[in-house]
């Protein structure tokens, strides 16, 4: 068994596709996603917010005070005599007055139009307050009546939990998919790969027990999946340390910290392990049925969708409100438990159900894979 394991490890660790999907992809995934997101978020928002926008305003009818406020809000007024039919890309909004009614016309399909509308609304709000304040003064009422109560918000959630909320949404989802992908390449390499190169016959005639041959293969594929997940987490930590503040800095004072305590890590690892065995067994079983790489890929790629769908549930708003049965659905249970652990609101019931069902699925999948691998109709199909 040791020699078998060594052989499979030597072999698969030189497969470029496996190495790439096990090390390179998970390591750069989070830095790329977060770097990209914060870059575009920052650039897009600051750019539009600091930009001078042009709006149409009739030559007459708008009080001077409003005009001034508009200009202070970085809006450039383009005089116009008749009502425009359409707004242009360079002038995405217009302000018209009909008696006491102000109408804001804007291009809701453009970001500039939205931004111009926001600024105009703020200006009109200010103008309204000034008008009310003036009228109250005329009546001799103190202006404090305008703000009878004050509202102050404080976010008491720890940095860890804020971080966990964001991480939990994505990490479970991405983890599941990445583990599946790297394990897929390893599984194909060690099964159809051997068939295509005709080394499988040598292996089967040399290793006394066929059961050990599959077990060694599944162990190595499991290892690949686990390493993938560890590297993914390392990539996440690195990107949080160096780029997290850039993305969340404003909302989360002091920047993000990665709230992965030793306990959380251990709890995650305990469910990750049977899940990796499950994925490895399923993929080895399917790949050893195929006659060629091509065929294996055409079986395993659709399976990917079956995996993505349940994992995606954790990304949805109501995803955490499903009943206890969600802890029994393969893939869904694991990506959901990661979310629970990272968001620090783990329910012991769902953890128990998830761990139990994951172990069960792993055992069943392993059993089926071992059984199929011993059948020559599966291994030597013409």
């Amino acid at each position: 068994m040791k020699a078998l394991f060594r052989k499979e490890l030597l072999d698969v660790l030189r497969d470029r596709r496996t190495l790439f999907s096990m090390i390179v992809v998970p390591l750069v995934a989070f830095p790329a996603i977060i770097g990209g997101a914060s870059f575009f978020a920052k650039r897009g928002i600051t750019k539009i917010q600091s930009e001078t926008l042009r709006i149409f305003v009739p030559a007459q009818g708008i009080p001077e005070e409003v005009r001034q406020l508009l200009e202070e809000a970085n809006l450039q007024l383009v005089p116009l005599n008749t009502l425009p039919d359409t707004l242009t890309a360079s002038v995405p909004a217009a302000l018209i007055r009909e008696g006491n009614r102000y109408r804001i016309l804007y291009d809701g399909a453009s970001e500039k139009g939205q931004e111009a509308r926001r600024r105009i609304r703020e200006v009109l709000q200010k103008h309204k307050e000034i008008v009310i304040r003036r009228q109250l003064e005329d009546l001799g009422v103190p202006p404090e009546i305008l703000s009878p109560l004050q509202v102050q918000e404080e976010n008491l959630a720890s940095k860890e939990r804020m971080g966990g909320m964001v991480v939990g949404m994505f990490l479970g989802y991405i983890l599941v998919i990445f583990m599946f992908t790297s394990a897929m390449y390893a599984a194909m390499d060690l099964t159809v790969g051997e068939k295509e190169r005709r080394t499988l016959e040598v292996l089967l005639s040399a290793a006394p027990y066929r059961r050990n041959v599959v077990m060694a293969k599944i162990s190595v594929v499991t290892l690949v999946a686990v390493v993938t997940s560890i590297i993914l987490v390392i990539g996440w930590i690195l990107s949080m340390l160096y780029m997290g503040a850039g993305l969340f800095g404003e909302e989360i004072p002091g920047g993000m910290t990665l709230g992965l305590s030793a306990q959380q890590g251990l709890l995650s690892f305990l469910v990750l392990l049977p899940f990796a065995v499950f994925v490895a067994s399923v993929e080895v079983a399917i790949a050893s049925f195929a006659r060629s790489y091509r065929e294996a890929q055409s079986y395993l790629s659709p399976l990917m969708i079956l995996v993505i769908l349940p994992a995606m549930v954790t990304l949805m708003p109501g995803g955490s409100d499903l009943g206890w049965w969600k802890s029994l659905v393969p893939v869904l249970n694991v990506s959901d438990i990661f979310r629970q652990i990272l968001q620090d609101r783990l329910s012991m019931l769902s953890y128990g159900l998830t761990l139990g069902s994951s172990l069960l699925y792993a055992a069943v999948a392993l059993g089926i894979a071992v059984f199929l691998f011993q059948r020559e109709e599966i291994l030597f199909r013409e």
Partner: protein
Amino acid sequence: MTVPTEGVVVQDLKKYFLDRKRGLVKAVDGVSFEARPGEIFALLGPNGAGKTTCLRVIATVLKPTAGQVFVQGWNVTQHPDQVRRVLGFHPGDAGVYHRLTPYEMVTVFAELAGHDRREAQKKAWEIFDQLGLTEVAKTPMGKLSTGQRQKSAIARIMVVDPPVWVLDEPALGLDVPTTQEVEQAILDAKQRGRTVILSTHTMEQAEYLADRIAVMDRGTIQAMGTMEDLRRSTHKTRLREIFLSLIKLEAPAP
């Protein structure tokens, strides 16, 4: 009956495949022979005769549909694990790991056969020396020539040196000097008392190496014996003529 505890015994072996297009394929249909220690037994036959299938069953890669096969006294169906411990199989053309070096493959398979790693490593270098593989011993086999790969595959069996050698077309695609080296290794094994069963398409090789020859066609053995036996029964002298006459018996010209 008593089964000899050495060599290979094949009794009325049948191997059928269920093929989607062709229906039931009788790849091997009632084959019996024995190969004894210190003997080289050659299977000859046209393409599709069933040689590879026969060797795969002996090597426990495939299970027999009917009949019995014993290797060193072990039944391949009941004790495949024991059979695998006493047999080395070479599956023809490829059968080498492209990303492993000859050195890695040879030592891993020696370990699989239960050999001590240190000793296997030492022996590997001696054998590489003998086969002229020393220079490429640490180069991935994907980068080696056909001959170097074939020799690595033979080296894999030589290091383990099991009592039974099963070789499917061991000289496939080899030049004359390389063929000579591989053939010498096979003759050496015979000298050491190993049982060797091989298949080949070269009449010359069969004549040069084999103590006994079986000519197969369409899953059955048409004739079997020493060269002398075959000459006597077919009244022909050259193996090529003998071979063709035996094949023609079964396959009328279209």
